[in-house]
């Protein structure tokens, strides 16, 4: 009887195509409701947006190194809101570049990479489910995301171009065309983020429902692989934080277009309300961008160290507490905004406390490699680098959490360094690692290891050369979001550093090329991948690469936790989750 009920549930959810194995081209590649196809759609789209966001960053770096110099090659082709007639970037256009660089990287790259690609791909496969709970909404989520990308980037073509108030869009600058001069672009920003929010919420609903309701028999919550745990907590954060941004964006849109006065001081509005709403979303948002990366890194570290993750439960509790505490620290972005200074003290406290779970995770990662048998595969290199880079980024966060120090470094390049250490050295490195790691499963072929290592080495070196000196620039008092630093006395002497940083940034950009070549070449020409190339224990490796529609021929049964590596008394050094432990194995009960 149980079977029938579930059958009906799935029947209704899956609609017609459950019974039609042959799908039309449209249903197979465009409006696909298979979570794996959707993940790949996300993957290709997001890689494209990464190039866009990266190119915008190149524009930023070019201007900072050579203020006023015409942009080579394409300078004169660019629209007049962006460049002068000679082709040099204008200050207003520069603000637009920074704004769209960050908006694209945050909303169109890191979030969809971690959540859209790996959330979609891994959740059903790692919990032993045939698909997401709501495949229709999953497909809808992708297309809404795609639409939001188009809307955001289309602001390039409207009069006055990109929104130019920073990715944080502080009102009243963002709320009045007379102040920002980019009415159309800023409005598109609001609309784009609203649509992006709908996509996130559709995704989050799906993930939460799937993880809670569709686990394979025996897959208890404390047997979930860590990426699933991380994505699950992330989904809860998305569900509760994103709608607040949507509300704020809607209010901002009305201020811009209907003459409402939510955020303007005249007419009883409050400029700081925007900041509170934005950061109430914004801080959970930064953890949304790191938690899945932490989950992914944990997985890769355990597999390649051939060891159980150190302190699995502690890892889970740390994730949960980061999720909870993430909602009460937003004020650390507003220490000097004019908010009550007593509140600053409280937010400083909660910020210090939220660093504790991150510390726990760091030590557990170190505990995982301790005593391991480490295989230096490309994904492992990225995961190892992730830990170190996250530590640097996290430690710089401690400077800012101390209110008096923030008085000095707020809105300087010290913050920019922090952002990129956690988001590039952290999240994006984990994403690269994850792509190398799950590529065999996704495409049924292996990526080239040598080129992978080259990509890693170049990315690692140039990443540090680009972003480490930004700490120094920040300490030197270099403000964020200024198009022409040498205009200031105290910054003139540090211009050589800016040039060094920019050159490194260009090299960092170029370092992506080996990756792209490796990626696309391997899709077609890579050596065929076996089912389980990394000798890993989680369920996705028990099915063919790539898995068929419906994922599992028969429902797997799960017998133990996800990280049973090097179990004493066994011949092979890994014990898949769906294999009962052999008689002689001395598996620790967990």
């Amino acid at each position, binding site marked *: 009887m149980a079977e029938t*009920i*579930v*059958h009906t*549930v799935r029947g*209704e*959810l899956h609609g017609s195509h459950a019974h039609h194995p042959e799908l039309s081209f449209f249903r197979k590649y465009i409006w696909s409701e298979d979570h794996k196809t959707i993940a790949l759609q996300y993957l290709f789209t997001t890689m494209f947006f990464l190039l866009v966001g990266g190119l915008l960053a190149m524009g930023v770096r070019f201007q900072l190194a050579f203020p006023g110099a015409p942009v080579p090659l394409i300078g004169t082709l660019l629209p007049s809101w962006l460049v002068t007639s000679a082709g040099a970037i204008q200050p207003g256009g520069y603000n637009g570049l920074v704004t769209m660089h960050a908006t694209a990287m945050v909303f169109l790259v890191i979030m969809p990479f971690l959540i859209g690609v790996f959330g979609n791909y891994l959740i059903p496969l790692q919990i032993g489910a045939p698909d997401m709970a709501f495949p229709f909404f999953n497909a809808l989520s992708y297309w809404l995301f795609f639409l939001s990308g188009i809307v955001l980037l289309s602001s390039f073509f409207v009069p006055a171009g990109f929104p130019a108030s920073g990715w944080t869009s502080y009102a009243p600058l963002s709320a009045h065309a007379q102040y920002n001069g980019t009415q159309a672009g800023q409005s598109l920003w609001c609309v784009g983020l609203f649509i992006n929010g709908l996509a996130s919420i559709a995704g989050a609903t799906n993930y939460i429902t799937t993880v809670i*309701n*569709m686990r394979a028999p025996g897959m208890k919550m404390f047997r979930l692989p860590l990426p699933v745990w991380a994505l699950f907590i992330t989904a809860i954060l998305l569900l509760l934080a994103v709608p607040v941004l949507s509300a704020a964006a809607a209010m901002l849109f009305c201020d811009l277009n209907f003459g409402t006065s939510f955020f303007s001081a005249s007419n009883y509005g409050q400029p700081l309300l925007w900041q509170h*709403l934005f950061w109430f979303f914004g801080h959970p948002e930064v953890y949304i961008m790191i938690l899945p990366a932490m989950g992914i890194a944990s997985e890769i570290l355990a597999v390649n160290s051939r060891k159980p993750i150190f302190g699995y439960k502690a890892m889970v509790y740390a994730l949960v507490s980061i999720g909870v505490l993430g909602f009460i620290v937003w004020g650390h972005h507003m220490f000097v905004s004019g908010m009550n200074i007593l509140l600053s003290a409280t937010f400083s406290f909660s910020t210090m406390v939220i660093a504790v779970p991150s510390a726990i995770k760091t030590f557990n990662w170190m505990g995982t490699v301790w005593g391991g048998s480490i295989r230096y595969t490309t994904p492992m290199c990225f995961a190892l680098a992730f830990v170190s880079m996250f530590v640097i980024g996290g430690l710089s966060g401690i400077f800012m959490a101390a209110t008096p120090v923030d008085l000095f470094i707020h809105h300087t390049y010290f913050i920019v360094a922090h952002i990129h250490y956690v988001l590039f050295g952290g999240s994006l490195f984990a994403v690269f690692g994850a792509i190398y790691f799950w590529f065999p499963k996704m495409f049924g072929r292996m990526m080239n290891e040598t080129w992978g290592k080259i990509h890693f080495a170049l990315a690692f070196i140039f990443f540090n050369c680009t972003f480490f000196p930004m700490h120094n620039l920040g300490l030197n008092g270099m403000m964020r979001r200024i198009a022409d630093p040498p205009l200031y006395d105290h910054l003139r002497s540090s211009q050589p550093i800016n040039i060094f940083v920019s050159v490194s940034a260009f090299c960092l950009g170029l370092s992506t090329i080996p990756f792209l070549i490796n990626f696309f070449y391997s899709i077609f020409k890579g050596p065929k991948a076996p089912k389980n190339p990394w000798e890993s224990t989680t369920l996705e490796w028990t099915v063919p690469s790539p898995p068929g529609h419906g994922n599992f021929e028969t429902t797997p049964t799960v017998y133990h936790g996800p990280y049973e590596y090097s179990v004493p008394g066994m011949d092979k050094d890994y014990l898949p989750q769906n294999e009962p432990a052999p008689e002689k194995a001395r598996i620790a009960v967990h």
Partner: protein
Amino acid sequence: MQASVTTIDELPAHPGGPNIIRFGMFTFLASEAMLFAGLICGYMVLRGGAGAGWQMPEALKNAETMIKTIIATLCLISSSFTLHFAEGRLIRHTKGGIGLLLLTILLGAIFLTNQALEWSNLHNEGFWFNTAGIMGSSFFVLTGFHGLHVFIGVLLLVTSLLKALGGKFTPQRHGFLECTGLYWHFVDIVWVFLFTILYIL
């Protein structure tokens, strides 16, 4: 292929109830609640901060508007009940289900019509998005957002009606109807909040 093979170990708590769908809907409504929480908190902060600068515009205070709104509110609240009773009947195919569903749609439509008339009325009396300080801003954005939700709700109800007429609901399969119901109740509750803070307090 294998899509109908299931992997759900914990089965729906009640046999016959599409529990996953309900779970998903509740999850989604949590998100909707945060959307309104954002808007409402914004309104309360602004109103608190405006102090004496905040006042209820005449157009909203007058008795006629009040009475009409109260009637519309009662319509919306009773529509939750009619829908509740419609649901059971539609699922079990007993008598009166369609009628009650139609009544629900009608009540929803009355609410929306009243809101549209009220907006145009207020507009004529010079109360609009950009007047009366944050009161104008908040009133129209909050009721607008809510109105949009009611509108979507009515569309869902109409779809449910079509499905019901097509005999699509069975005791085993009625997820769509159930979600529509949850959504409608949610929209209803939000209105009670909005009515209190916008018209009464």
